[in-house]
């Protein structure tokens, strides 16, 4: 188990040295980059909006129900909602969700290319296939993911505002005052930095599993599952390390 993990890590590192090379043709690279930003990033916007909106609403409801002490000011609901969204949900939880969507997409796409010999066809032409296929995906996703993170923060707060506006659980004034109180700008940067690291993990790990698939359709599915599981675990591990490094 340990030897296998070390071996996989070594192979992943070698794979990354192939990926991070100068592209054969910059024009083609930028065309693919735009395509990947659209496919992996822009196409994830609806999912991010829906999930953030609902989770923001749920967090607000839970905070309202649980903060009942008269010693705690009423604006605390908004404040707690904001802190949860900024510190953990919009970066870590959203990345775990994106690992499922984007990670499986990347692993299955590259895995299918492998089993249908499309990667061999690229290699035969003398093109660095790892660089050609994977680099635009990694760079594209890493570049766009801060947008998704900030969008998630914003939509989460809007979800909470909906609860304040359309229910009698808390007032809009208290909620808005809460989300504006004791604001620490660094928390936004902290969330963005974490998301960028997680995006790199999602894209590179999924690409690694897809690239080294052997077999057929069944193995592509297994690689996709492995990619999601591995990247999720690595995200959680990186979350602990980054939180320790950035917040302490």
């Amino acid at each position, binding site marked *: 188990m340990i030897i296998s993990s070390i071996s996989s890590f070594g192979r992943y590192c070698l794979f990354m040295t192939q990926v991070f090379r100068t592209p*054969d*043709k910059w024009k*083609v690279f930028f065309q693919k980059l735009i395509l990947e930003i659209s496919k992996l990033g822009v196409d994830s916007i609806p999912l991010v909006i829906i999930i953030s909106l609902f989770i923001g609403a749920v967090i607000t409801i839970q905070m309202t129900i649980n903060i009942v002490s008269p010693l705690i000011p009423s604006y605390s609901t908004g404040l707690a909602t904001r802190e949860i969204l900024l510190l953990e949900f919009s970066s870590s939880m959203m990345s775990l969700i994106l690992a499922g969507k984007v990670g499986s997409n990347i692993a299955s796409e590259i895995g*299918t*290319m492998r089993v*249908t*010999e*499309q990667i*061999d*066809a690229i*290699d*035969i*032409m*003398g*093109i660095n296939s790892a660089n050609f296929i994977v680099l635009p995906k990694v760079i594209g996703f890493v570049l766009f993911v801060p947008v998704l993170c900030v969008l998630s923060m914003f939509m989460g707060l809007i979800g909470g505002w909906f609860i304040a506006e359309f229910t009698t659980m808390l007032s809009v004034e208290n909620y808005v005052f809460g989300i504006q109180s004791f604001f620490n700008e660094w928390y936004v940067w902290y969330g963005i930095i974490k998301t960028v690291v997680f995006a790199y993990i999602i894209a590179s790990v999924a690409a690694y599993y897809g690239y080294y698939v052997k077999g057929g359709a069944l193995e592509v599915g297994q690689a996709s599952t492995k990619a999601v599981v591995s990247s999720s675990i690595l995200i959680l591990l990186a979350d602990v390390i980054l939180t320790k490094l950035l917040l302490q």
Partner: protein
Amino acid sequence: MIEAKNVSKWFDGQRILYDISATFETGKTNLIIGQSGSGKTVFMKCLIGLLSPEEGTILYDGRIFREMSQQQKRALRTEIGMLFQGSALFDNETVLGNVMFPLRMFSRMSHEEQLERAHFCIKRVGLTNADEKYPSEISGGMQKRVAIARAIALNPKYLFCDEPNSGLDPRTSILIDELLSDITHEYGITTIINTHDMNSVLGIGEKIVFINKGHCDWIGNDKTIFRSKSQSLNDFVFASKLFQEVKKFLEREYEAEENI
């Protein structure tokens, strides 16, 4: 011309190829034949450089592949066209996009010139009104034609085809064989075709290398294959009832020739 000298290959301690030596000539359709699992695909992958043989040498027009620098290997690869068993077309590209791919990556042509060249190649393989279709929207035979068009887009010196007839009906198989043969002669390409289709052997086998259990058992052409004394080759060639009948007919012919 491509030469293989004493090529041997192992996988996990198991020997797959045993000292295979063969020469594949320029301007001819060279066939590698053998049963499934005989090692012919491994041999072809060694020839292309997708696998490294543990022993032996591959020479491209006298240039030793193993001793080439990475840059030289890259340059050589632009001289190679490859037709894969499953066509290996890019799913997210149209027919035109697939054929233009190597031109976009390697040529210094303008976009218009690339388009012109791609259209020429598509026309050359006999495809019409398919430019904007995706690989999933065309038949297997058409996919093979697109793959051939892509393979010849850069005017390759060497063309490798891995089982070009697999999954095709007999009529389409013959058309693909004829197309490969025509292209080989027209452009003077060194074409190597990996197949176990006897129709191809008889139709375009200008040079035939027979591989059996990792050994090169016989080298000849479509004229000499029926006179071979190699038992393993005869078992392979005359496996079907049709070819057993052909064998009986030929034996009678040979006897008649000898009597005369």
